[in-house]
């Protein structure tokens, strides 16, 4: 069976959930092999094995981490050349899409971004599902040239264990000087909040201009549900919440099991980032707010009374 490469998303060997999702999906297309760039492959090996990686190609280039996406594209191109995989799966985040873009040009291959599903089509080659135009259309697509390069959105598949060996296989790739022309010179880690990461979270609770700058009720409700906290651009532009928490066209695209919008009107640019959520809930004072067109459940009311009451009720029920 043909190999399917999965580019791992990890921080020093701590695998993000997206990696396990991609390994799960890759099994539908062939035998998954992970590609691990940077340190920590030994730490990650158990998880690779658990989710069905037969092999792990390890490129432990200490530099790779400080040189952005170009080196990773070169590394993947070299491995593709070596093993002729049936497909390459990459997490559909900003960096992942850029790696895929460069890889597509380098290898003369077609690429698909933001897939929410991947499967083997009638002829055995990968077929993807994407949601476009702010979720108003569903598109089925295929790569017709080269090695299919497919970027899959986080949270698109439920992870399933299927233990394999995950044998580590070191690969020597010499990264060109040109790929190192852009370099991270300083990196200030975000303060840890103890909350799940926005794009990985099963539940997201977001606040907008309606919070008037007080995200307290939003955060407390989020914490009662174990949720991540998001924000509309209006809230971010006002300086009430960090830009990295912005949901929408120019922020994060999330698709959790449950999305709660509090004090958010539901502008098209906001919808573009949350419309594929499975269940949508809104709390808004204005019954005409467009967000209510999308909801499974809506409360017309003041978030400063609705959210605290919901928080204590949730805590009570959870015990």
């Amino acid at each position: 069976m043909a190999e399917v490469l999965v580019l791992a998303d990890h921080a020093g060997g701590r695998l993000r959930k997206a990696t396990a999702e991609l390994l799960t999906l890759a099994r539908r297309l062939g035998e998954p092999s992970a590609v691990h760039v940077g340190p920590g492959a030994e730490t990650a090996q158990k998880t690779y094995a658990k989710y069905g990686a037969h092999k792990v190609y390890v490129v432990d280039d200490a530099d790779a981490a400080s040189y952005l996406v170009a080196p990773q594209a070169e590394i993947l191109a070299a491995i593709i050349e070596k093993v002729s995989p049936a497909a390459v799966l990459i997490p559909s985040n900003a960096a992942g899409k850029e790696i895929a873009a460069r890889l597509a040009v380098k290898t003369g291959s077609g690429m698909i971004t933001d897939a929410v599903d991947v499967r083997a089509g009638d002829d055995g080659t990968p077929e993807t599902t994407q949601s476009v135009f702010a979720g108003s259309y569903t598109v089925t697509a295929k790569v017709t040239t080269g090695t299919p390069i497919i970027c899959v959105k986080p949270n698109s598949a439920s992870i399933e264990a299927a233990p394999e060996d995950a044998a580590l296989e070191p690969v020597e790739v010499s990264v060109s000087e040109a790929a190192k022309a852009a370099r991270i010179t300083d990196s200030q880690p975000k303060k840890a909040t103890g909350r799940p990461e926005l794009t990985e979270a099963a539940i997201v609770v977001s606040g907008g201009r309606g919070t008037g700058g007080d995200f307290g009720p939003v955060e407390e409700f989020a914490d009662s549900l174990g949720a991540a906290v998001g924000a509309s651009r209006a809230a971010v532009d006002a300086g009430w919440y960090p830009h990295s928490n912005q949901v929408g066209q120019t922020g994060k695209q999330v698709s959790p099991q449950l999305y709660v919008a509090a004090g958010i009107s539901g502008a098209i640019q906001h919808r573009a980032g949350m419309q594929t959520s499975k269940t949508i809930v809104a709390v808004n004072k204005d019954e005409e707010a467009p967000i209510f067109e999308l909801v499974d459940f809506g409360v017309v009311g003041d978030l400063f009374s609705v959210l605290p009451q919901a928080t204590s009720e949730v805590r009570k029920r959870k015990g």
Partner: protein
Amino acid sequence: MNIVVCVKYVPDAQSERTFQESDNTVDRAAADGLLSELDEYAVEEALKIVEAAGEGEVTVVTVGPEAAADAIKKALQMGADKAVHVQDDAIHGSDAVGTSLVLAKAVEKVTDGSPELVLTGMSSTDGVMGVVPAMLAERLGLPQVTYASELTVGDGSVTIRRDGDTASETIEASLPALVSVTDQINEPRYPSFKGIMAAKKKPVETWSLADLGVDASDVGLEAAWTSVVAFAKRPPREQGQIVTDEGDGGTKLAEFLSAQKFL
């Protein structure tokens, strides 16, 4: 410093967007078009850099249908000095790979093969792929610095700040370079009356694929390396239950979450 800004003409996000039944491509005639809002930030940034330096020229380049002239006009009204419009029926249906090929050739031609700084938006408001900048950088052999929320042009180098998922990063690259900018970087100006009048006299060159030495068989729908097999309009989400808070809205919300097994 001479700056090239790549701008895209896109269907208005506020209007109905759809596909063409005949070939599964985006129906660009159905919706009104405009300069992609996110590219206004790139035009603004280029203008600011040139204004601060007191020298240099801003050239906008677009690949798109005849109507894309509107996008060019807007950029010229904002203050760009000149424009290139690559227009060829054979380009219809190109994917990002094809578009980036044409764009790269156009950037090379307009800069005589030596661009100094190429600016783009973070993504187009229709495709929202955010991949053309990376492809352009790959094709032009330029260092790629993307998602800039601040940009400083120094002597022979550029420095950006960007807001990553896990960290706020400073990134440095040598010039020439390709930089994509976010909607955090500035506040795009509105064209002034003077700008609107001046734009009418600014040079716009229209190039075909032949002018760029691009083979028509390398672009367009036929050459696309991906294909849309099918598309379907999603049934509009059925509106769920809406309750008005009468002192028990929070409790009802919790009950809904409990019934849906979220607790």
